[in-house]
């Protein structure tokens, strides 16, 4: 009945939005903005035992122009905040941000003159991961939550 009966075997119909989102969520290119101790746990997540490549996020790119998921891992100081902002600006849409660890989410244990008390004051964050540092399983959970977010997006979500 309908269009499906005319199509050859092996063809599916779906909405453009779903295909685009399915493609995006299963091939996220993380950009590890590794700064401090959380960066070491992020490196653990990317290596053999807690392999993040299983979830499609294998191709880590250190260039913001080629990535779509920024993982801010570590405490962001006064000098580093403009750098973070510039890197965020350089990433093309669509882009998402994970704020990994207590320091990136809210300043952590360091309520001092030199640390930004949470990067979400200055750049938009999608998922926060608590922990000091969070276990690799928590970071994997965060990437899965980003995948859920991507799945539900509308096609024009990232159009300015």
């Amino acid at each position, binding site marked *: 009945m309908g269009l499906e009966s005319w199509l050859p075997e092996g063809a599916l119909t779906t909405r453009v939005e779903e295909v685009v989102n399915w493609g995006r969520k299963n091939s996220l290119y993380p950009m590890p*903005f590794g*700064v*401090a*101790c959380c*960066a*070491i*746990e992020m*490196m*653990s997540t990317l*290596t*053999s*035992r807690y392999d993040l490549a299983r979830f499609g996020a294998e191709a880590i790119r*250190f260039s913001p122009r080629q990535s779509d998921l920024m993982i801010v891992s*570590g*405490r962001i*100081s*006064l*000098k*580093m905040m403009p*750098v973070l902002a510039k*890197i965020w600006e350089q990433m093309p849409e669509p882009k998402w941000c994970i704020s990994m660890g207590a320091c990136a989410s809210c300043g952590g*244990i*360091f309520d*001092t*003159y*030199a*640390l930004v008390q949470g990067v979400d004051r200055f750049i938009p964050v999608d998922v926060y991961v608590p922990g*000091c*540092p969070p*276990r690799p399983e928590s970071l994997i959970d965060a990437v899965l939550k980003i995948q859920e977010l991507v799945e539900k997006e509308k096609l024009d979500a990232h159009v300015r």
Partner: protein
Amino acid sequence: MERSARTPVEIEEQVDGDLGSKRMIVNFGPQHPATHGTLRSIIQLEGETVKSMDLEIGYLHTGFEKLGEFRSWNQGVTISDRMNYLSPLCNNIGLSVACEGLMGIEITPRCAAIRVILYELARLADHIIMVGLQAMDLGAFSVMLWAFIEREKMYDVFEAVTGARLTTSYTRVGGLFRDVPHDFEEQVRKLMGECLRTIQEMEGMLNENRIFRDRTIGVNTISKADAISFGLTGPLLRACGVPYDIRKSQPYCGYEQYDFEIAVEQEGDVWARYRIRVKEMYESLKIIDQALKNLPDGPINVDAPEVIIPKKDSHNHPTGGMEGLIYHFKNYMHGHGVQPPVGEYYRGTESPNGELGFYLVSDGTMRPWRWRVRPPSLYTFQAFPTMCAGQTISDVVSGLSSLNIIAGELDR
């Protein structure tokens, strides 16, 4: 080597003023895959040769030293974790050794032996990951993955003992947080066997490798006189022929009982530092083996109720639980707690980076008056432009990965 210019703007002016020059400025960092942490170098190149280098640090400055003045003597250990985050137990133990020196406390033999085992395990973790990252920077990606597998096994041991993988906060003034689990020796021996095989595999991959040797032999050499003048310590100093190791010259935690050698090389280049790190890993395995064989029984905490809280039903207190309860109260009440005598103390320990020193000034209250960290990475990074003089840009990458600069410790 020419003296480096003052600021990037001044470098630009110097270059622009000489029209037709072949100089180029390359900004290396602070966000870059090959910088180990948030370091920035502004390199002036002529072709591929480095003419001058200006360094900028402070991208991870958190205010640890200021924060240390607002935390009690025992709370300071949580701050020390986050400095050298590749081997946090070394920082914890270094801080506790300095605090105990300030107060004149002698730790128990069991505590000393456990601290030595964990210190050497942390040194193994640091060196193995440094060799892994050094290899990755030069192209051998698998070596880094092997190193991380071993590090995960060490994390399992740390988690079983301290409760956390990375930020352990394990030591207290006068003792430890808690005793090791009953299967500690079994876990550590299994780990040691697997680690030994992995280090041998890594050596097999890198020692005779033409690419690795060409990129490390003769690269980033520093002379002995320069190394001493710059205040270098640890593997970098031993690579220049100075056989100085704090574990032998001013031992702490009972290091004088263990039989191990100091790794020394003469050339002072990247290859020498790599050889020293590998040798130190083998020596660490030896020390852990000896410490495990002779692990004494007994209490892990010092029997000094002003410092370590006694058990509430402790048999030491003839009046029963009341005195124990009072000591508990006094140890935790604001304005009380661990209160060293008025004075100051400096103690350096042999961390995998070099000499990690703590300079503690006490005014008799529960908070330090000055909590100063002597970071080995600061003095190492300061010597980096001298090491890179006249080398090519690829030697800069190779050299930076051999220095073991941890930005957390450098910037504090």
